[in-house]
């Protein structure tokens, strides 16, 4: 019997991503059909490209205070988005700001996702006292809203990039743990898990080869939702002065600093604010398209 190349590729892809190929195809379908998905994809792409290539693309040094203060945005001028109270180029600053947003968004969610998914898998698969202990621990984490963790961290260790990632990501451990556990519990009801046990697979193989791939769709959706929320959290922390570092250009910090000049030069605040809004909106649209494609119930968040 002959297997065509495309069959092999399909199977391998399914194995690599742990996603059924028709999920990918379904998503591509959704992308083609759904305006929401297209808009989301464009925004996310622009944002990621701007963040990655900020050093190459920015016209000016984001820290240089030499371009004249409070220049309003002029699309044709030298500073299309204007300058701030120190005479720094806002366009260059927001592009660098995108890097922080992206790094914190991804970093925090990867951090929370790694531990959360692990806890969820073990907790859901083994049940019993392991479940009890892990979920009670998650309950305690959850009783600390991320902002309180951030406040404590900054109070103790001062401001810093990793502190932000840790504070924001820590809060997502419980989101991921709960959603993964819920999925595992329902997958565990499926007879193919018993069948795998019956075939003679080890717990490790059953958890990571049989269970995890079947929980991955809602986890991916959760991932995008939380990247969006992590970026909002980062901007809130920066706005409050608890973020990365006061001098680093981040959207939240720029917005906070510009607040003083709201009547005089509203664009200093409004531009980064709108950028936060558009980017987070784009990621949310993208996540929503994923959700539609994978047909994940939002109730899974509960």
């Amino acid at each position, binding site marked *: *019997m002959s*297997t065509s190349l495309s*069959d092999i590729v399909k*199977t391998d892809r*399914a194995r690599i991503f*742990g*996603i*059924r190929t*028709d999920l990918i195809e379904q998503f591509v379908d959704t992308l083609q059909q759904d305006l929401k998905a297209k808009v989301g994809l464009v925004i996310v792409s622009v944002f990621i490209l701007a963040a990655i290539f900020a050093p190459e693309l920015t016209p000016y040094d984001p820290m240089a205070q030499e371009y004249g203060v409070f220049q309003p945005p002029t699309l044709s001028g030298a500073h299309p988005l204007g300058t701030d109270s120190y005479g720094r180029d806002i366009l260059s600053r927001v592009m660098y700001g995108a890097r922080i947003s992206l790094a914190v968004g991804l970093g925090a969610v990867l951090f929370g996702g790694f531990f959360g998914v692990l806890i969820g898998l073990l907790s859901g698969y083994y*049940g*019993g*006292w392991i*479940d*009890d202990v892990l979920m*009670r621990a998650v309950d305690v984490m959850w009783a600390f809203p991320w902002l309180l963790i951030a406040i404590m961290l900054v109070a103790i260790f001062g401001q810093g990039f990793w502190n932000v990632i840790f504070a924001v990501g820590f809060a997502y451990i419980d989101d991921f743990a709960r959603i993964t556990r819920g999925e595992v519990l329902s997958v565990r009801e*499926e*007879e*193919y898990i*018993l*069948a*795998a*046990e*019956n*075939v*003679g*697979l080890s717990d490790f193989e059953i958890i990571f080869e*049989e269970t995890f*791939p*079947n929980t991955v769709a809602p986890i991916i959706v959760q991932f995008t939702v939380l990247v969006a929320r992590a970026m909002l959290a980062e901007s809130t922390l920066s706005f409050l002065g608890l973020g990365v570092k006061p001098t680093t250009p981040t959207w939240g910090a720029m917005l906070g600093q510009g607040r003083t000049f709201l009547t005089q030069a509203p664009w200093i605040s409004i531009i980064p604010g709108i950028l936060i809004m558009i980017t987070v909106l784009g990621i949310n649209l993208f996540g929503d398209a994923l959700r539609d494609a994978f047909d994940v119930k939002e109730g899974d968040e509960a």
Partner: protein
Amino acid sequence: MTVSEEVEEPGRIPDDPLLRAEGVEKYFESNTGLIDSVFGNEEYVKAVDGVDIAIGQEETVGLVGESGCGKSTLGRTLSRLYEPTGGTINFGDKDVTDISGSELRSLRKEVQVIFQDPLSSLNPRKTTREIIGKPLEVHDLASGQEKRERVEELLEEVGLRASHADRYPHEFSGGQRQRIGIARALAVEPELIIADEPVSALDVSVQAQIINLMKRLQDEYGLSYLFIAHDLSVVKHIADRVAVMYLGHIVEKGPTSAIFKNPQHPYTRALLRSIPSVEGTKGKREVLLEGNPPSPLNPPSGCPFHTRCPEYMGEECEAETPTLKSVVDAPGEIGPPDGTPIDVTGDTSKAEHTVACHWLEEDAEERRSNDPLTGD
């Protein structure tokens, strides 16, 4: 009092059974919360509560009962998918009650399970090739090209095509999926297959295909089956011996012909009567079993069936749990105890037909006069 003759026919208790289980128990904790355990509020569901069962070489034992009677749990416990709470399970001459690790893995090569829901029992993210190839891989039976060929061979053996190997489960019909499940079980060339309601989820016309397939494979490979079902007529067709389960207990077991021609337990008889038939003249079924089985969380005292028993005889039934006692079969119609059941000996291990009911100790006349099934 007659002693059963030694006859060479299916339905005899095997002298040297492949699988022998004694006093098997499986309890589930119903509340596992931290706070509940601290306060000692644990409650147990006695899903399987002291079951003896033996399955011989190339024999098919049917296990029947209503939903929630514990038949699936028993099947899973015997295959060691569940850890038994009590009792012993022997496979061949080996005690497999507490084995784990590599010993358990090698048991998996001998005992395989076919599941009820053919969609749920196949991982939706895996191709047929991966599903059937996995047991070959795990037990080092074949790899590479050999594995590919073996998978395709197995597919053809169960009536599918080799070209089906790279499809995903959702691309098949229910009957085809169940064939994949059978191929997976067959891959390790097991001695015993525990089939947990393998046809309940299938359409009538497909049920017959699967039953015939299972019978053919039994002949070819010399398999033994524990065939679990709620449908007595399916069991009649495939089993050599039948065990009837109610609320975690086996209440009657014996050769298929004895169970169907001369059922002795009131539950078995009521169950047989409530089977709808496609033959005879139109007529309503008698309702012999009122209500539902009680909850296994809070099982009734004494005989588990006494709350619904049409032949309830009083305190005795509530006070004491009847044990399986041997009866000698005499020809008779379904239902009426023409062949009077007689308590033979205390030794039930070799008995063909055993029943757990207090009536067995009563006079046959007495029993007949109380029997709602005799038609008076």
